[in-house]
């Protein structure tokens, strides 16, 4: 399947915690290997656990999956996962920066930190997605994306494993589209 892009968007950022990984896979499995946007995925994880996350997600998807490396440049058709125990930021030249500063809302990586820095770089050409999760992380970042003119999307809480995160995002970002996972995938394929 070939996806034709209008050029309206340049990147996608997604975040979640509890239930977030399964939700992300349910979306990513629909994207073809030549999906034209880079995708950044921030999931809260246990500290100090050796990460099998990229390998787990890779099994079920066509797009390339990898952990974001320091100073790596974002490429289309690739999903970059925030490494455990670092904040992941995006520079103006679309390379990644890592940061071990304080946890935000008990989380490192923090979804807010990645979303806010992505909003600075991509402005209205950014899609932000908040998935299932047991924290309020992501709301503030999604708000920033929306304010910068980007598209805010939240997983329908009725479908989420844990509703705290999507619920908080919907309350904070009134203009967010609330969609099921299938609808989010369809949206990503149509833009």
């Amino acid at each position: 399947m070939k996806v034709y892009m209008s050029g309206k968007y340049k990147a996608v950022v997604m975040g979640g915690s509890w239930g977030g990984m399964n939700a992300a896979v349910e979306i990513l499995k629909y994207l073809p290997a030549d999906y034209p946007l880079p995708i950044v995925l921030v999931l809260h994880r246990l500290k100090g656990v050796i990460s099998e996350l990229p390998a787990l997600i890779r099994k079920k998807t066509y797009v390339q999956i990898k952990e974001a490396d320091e100073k790596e440049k974002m490429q289309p058709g690739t999903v970059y996962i925030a490494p455990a125990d670092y904040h992941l930021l995006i520079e103006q030249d679309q390379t990644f920066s890592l940061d071990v500063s304080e946890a935000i809302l008990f989380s490192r990586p923090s979804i807010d930190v990645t979303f806010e820095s992505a909003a600075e770089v991509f402005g209205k050409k950014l899609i932000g997605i908040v998935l299932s999760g047991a924290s309020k992380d992501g709301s503030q970042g999604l708000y920033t994306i929306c304010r910068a003119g980007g598209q805010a999307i939240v997983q329908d809480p009725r479908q989420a494993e844990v509703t705290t995160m999507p619920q908080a995002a919907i309350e904070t970002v009134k203009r967010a589209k609330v969609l099921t996972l299938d609808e989010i995938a369809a949206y990503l394929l149509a833009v």
Partner: protein
Amino acid sequence: MLDNVQVDDLFEELLKQYGYDFRDYSRASVLRRVSRFMTHTRLPDLHSLKLATLKDPQFFEYFLQEITVNVTEMFRDPSFFLALRQKVVPILSTYPYIKIWDAGCSTGEEIFSLAILLKEENLLKRTRIYATDINQKVLRQAKEGIFPMAHMVHYTKNYQKAGGKYSLSDYYHAHHGGAIFDSTLLENIIFYPHNLATDESFNEFHLIICRNVLIYFNKQLQERVFGLFLKSLAPLGYLGLGKKESVLFAAKPEFFESIDKEEKIYRRTY
């Protein structure tokens, strides 16, 4: 959103007045910390931040503390310390006298971890460690060697995973919620302000440890620091970096041979 031109101007002025150079720090990360600082101190814009820092050296000192990241822990990434113990220490122990540089030692958790490891390997007495940081306040804190008791459960787990031979509690006593570490661990440690962005090489070392510092620098500054490390490493000396760092942006990466790929331990090749 902060204006990059104004940020450049602020950094130029701070460099002229105080000699601290933030121009080649990773922008996204340093901008985030600058805007956090402005929120906390209720400064409305970059111009007022510039005036306030230039006018008042103490305020600048405060700015410096908040802009640089000083989050650390004892035996952070225990597998790194285990690799150090298993792969580097046996070689170091063949030297009559060992010199180590801990660049960016922050509040001292890493220094105490290193000192404990060396003591358990019977090397501490013939080792001299130079512990440096850009930030003088954290150096004073590091010298005190008092860390929150509340962190000791986590640090004990790290210590055990790092191949600790005894019990972490052998090295500290509890006092008013603080764990006061044995000060004899610091006998051969020299604390010293040093700025990787502007200062030069000051000695020759068998091991340099610089973890989670380079991630805050752009490629140019990383290249400078690798040059500095190369000048400061004895032939066949070791370099230990943070888990997500590499010698990729060194001007001559071939001068660093990988000893442990996962733990980012390298050795100077010539």
